[in-house]
């Protein structure tokens, strides 16, 4: 059976979902449900002591979903490592989605600090899933130091622009021996399908599900898009051509031939 294996753990779904920015916890739960996902990401933030909201954990069935904390907000390796340790101390498995994004405007990952943090966290026994630029050489180096996956970006977080880094993602997929999860910028099921058709092992989506009137329907649409792309990749896609190929026989009887 076609499964996604990360750090020795098998998953039947190749769609990871984020839990940010949903209009309501119910929308978030519905989206998770309809996405078929088995891995959901969460972030860490200060409690507002003056009016503590209830915890997001109250809404996530951790028997059903693997909780994947991220280090969002970290601007350098040190901050990312600190967040990773806090997440583990909070009782999560030592899985961490590593994010180091110094620029608040485009939220693009820092290759140097991401690499530095990954080295530390791998040594500390974390299963590291690094969010990274679509940089094939960096992907190789992260694989070499022992990250569990690479998570190259399709486009900046939340832009819904699709796999704008297509050429580089293709090289990363070609050269990787660990799962390649396309993260960030996927705004439509066709984007997710495209990534999977290219041979990506999985995709992560958040904004596209939160940023719609109907999160549950969109989550199901992405689920189908991911499955469609994966199944097409496994079946073997036809090659692109310049010249047309008649799909009907060019029948002769019309001319006096």
């Amino acid at each position, binding site marked *: 059976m076609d499964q996604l294996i990360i750090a020795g753990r098998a998953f039947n779904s190749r769609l990871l979902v*984020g*839990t*940010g*920015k*949903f209009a309501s916890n119910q929308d*978030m739960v519905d989206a998770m449900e309809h996405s078929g996902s088995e891995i959901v*990401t*969460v*972030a*860490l*933030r*200060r*409690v*507002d*002591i003056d009016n*503590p909201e209830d*915890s*997001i*954990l*109250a809404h996530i069935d951790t028997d059903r979903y693997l*909780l994947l*904390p*991220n280090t*969002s907000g970290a601007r350098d390796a040190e901050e990312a490592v600190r967040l990773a*340790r*806090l*997440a583990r*101390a*909070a009782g999560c498995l030592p899985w961490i989605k590593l994010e180091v994004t110094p620029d608040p405007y485009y939220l693009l990952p820092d290759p140097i600090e991401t690499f530095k943090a990954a080295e530390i966290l791998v040594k500390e026994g974390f299963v590291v899933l690094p969010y990274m630029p679509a940089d094939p050489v960096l992907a190789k180096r992260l694989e070499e130091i022992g990250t569990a996956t690479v998570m190259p970006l399709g486009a900046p*977080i*939340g832009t819904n622009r699709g796999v704008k880094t297509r050429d580089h993602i293709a090289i990363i997929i070609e050269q990787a021996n660990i799962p390649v999860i396309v993260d960030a910028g996927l705004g439509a099921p066709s984007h997710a399908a495209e990534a999977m058709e290219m041979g990506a092992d999985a995709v*992560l989506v*958040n*904004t596209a599900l939160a940023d719609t009137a109907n999160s549950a329907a969109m989550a199901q649409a992405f689920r189908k898009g991911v499955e469609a792309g994966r199944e097409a990749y496994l079946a073997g896609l036809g090659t692109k051509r310049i010249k047309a190929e008649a799909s009907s026989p060019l029948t002769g009887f019309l001319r006096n031939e």
Partner: protein
Amino acid sequence: MELTINGSNKEYQDKITVQQLLQLSNISPGRVVIELNRNILSPDMHDKTELRHGDTIELIQFVGGG
């Protein structure tokens, strides 16, 4: 006694433990992770740990994120 909790200063008359602080703030221990002066404090230390003047406490929880 003054404490810095999540970045803001708070005055407390009497000595309190971390556990008491959580109670006072209506925060169930299960859902937060705590840094005391930049060191992570494991849950079993909550009641054993008395806060001192000048301590810096971070109360962190999970929220939605991508």
